[in-house]
């Protein structure tokens, strides 16, 4: 009885955390929608951005997939060999829940890969794609 109760509480806590995380992510996406002046984002456009090969950024990082691999559900690796947890929310549920962190990595990685900052629309598309994975 006690064990069942513990499991139930743990499950509820996990569910609660997941709901909270989803709420935080939705908030971040909504913020980008407001900035971009759009009502919805395209996961397909996010995928295209994720897989695109670019020449405008830094030489060592022509694409997101250089480090994150072409499969969002797979673990990536930094250029010095440190593992990166999968980008897909289904694999790493705590992804994209801290707005400052999301902004920091968009700022850095868009500059590294594209040679410019990403637009709010690109960010929203990218997050929508990762949330769908």
């Amino acid at each position, binding site marked *: 009885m006690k064990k069942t109760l513990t499991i139930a509480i743990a499950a509820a806590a996990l569910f609660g955390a997941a709901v909270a995380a989803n709420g935080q992510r939705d908030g971040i996406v909504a913020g980008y929608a407001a900035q971009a002046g759009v009502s919805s984002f395209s996961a397909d456009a996010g995928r295209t951005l994720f897989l695109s090969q670019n020449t405008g950024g830094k030489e*060592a990082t022509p694409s997101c997939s250089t480090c994150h691999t072409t499969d969002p559900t797979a673990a990536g690796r*930094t250029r*010095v060999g440190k593992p990166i947890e999968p980008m897909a929310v289904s694999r790493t549920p705590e992804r994209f829940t801290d707005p400052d962190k999301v902004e920091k990595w968009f700022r850095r990685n868009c500059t590294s890969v594209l040679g410019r900052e990403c637009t709010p629309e690109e960010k929203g598309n990218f997050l929508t794609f990762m949330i769908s994975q």
Partner: protein
Amino acid sequence: MADTNTTPVWDKFIRTFHWALVLGVSTAAVSGFLLSPTWINLHIWAGTTAAVLLLARLLWGVWGSKNARFAAFVKGPREVMTHVRELKDGKAARHLGHNPLGALMIIALLGTVFLLLLTGVAGLGGVFKAGPLGFAASYNFGTFTLSVHEVLAIFLMVLVVLHIAGAAFEGMRTKENLVKAMVTGNKEKRKNDHDLPEVASRPIWAAVVFGIVLAGFVWGGIWFASKPPFGVPSAPPNATYADECSACHMAYPPSLLPAKNWGTLMSVLDDHFGEDASLGQVATDEITTWLFENASDSVDTKPAHVFSRTNPQSPLAITSTPFWKNTHRNIPDAEFTRPPIYDNGNCAACHSDADSGAFYPANISIPKETSP
């Protein structure tokens, strides 16, 4: 040669000591001269063995059998000269134990081993901040004593060659197998042999003193070795540095670069080894301050010293420093890019103590290739 005609010369201790020291010195010489520095612990154990043997030999030189006692077999200059003159004239009688020249060699060998032990411990302490002198010896003192250690090591090799040559010469001159005598302990009795007066050895007394002195050395060695190392302040960990920097790579110990270079590195984070790693102003300032306070300028480890000589062409990359390039020159480039290493900036892949900034040679192990 009948057994009844032989006499004991080298007691069991002397013979065991002799061949054990041969093994200890050979191991130390091979690991020191020929093997890579990753064998440093074998070298240290060989030295430690030699130290214990030397202590036992010194005590046996006071309380041992007649041919072991320094006071009896070590002769003054006049007797050495007499022996040399008699050798020239071809009328030198045989010494059952050490002859006056051989006695000088024994003193030279034991003395050189003793100095090797001292300089080795000082070098280990100063350079690697390890062992009983790690708490007191500076890096510069350590590198100096290690140079002396190297000269002494070469000198010992010369002595060993002369010792073997001397034994070969004496063996031919007196027509006896001196190596065999050092195994069996016995020599043929002959007329006109120089022999030393009989004394009773005192093995129990020697063993008790040996035990007490050895226990003192071990206790003292462990006590001193456990003191905080000299010039290695333990940097207070910084959560911001750990979080931000180790997001992509190991948190390099701040003691690996001078403050000046850390300052430059932190000012160009938007082009950080080919990536944008920029941070907000607050985090940048906090990390910069922490790096300055714990930079190599105030640290006395070997990495702090050797990496302070940066490469003017690439002053931010530790892997571009002359020392780094030189010590890694025999490792093919492909080794650095294969899994699980991936990049030469991944120190911890091979240096298990990279996070501490120590980079002790025995802690190097190149991992086998894995699937990516």
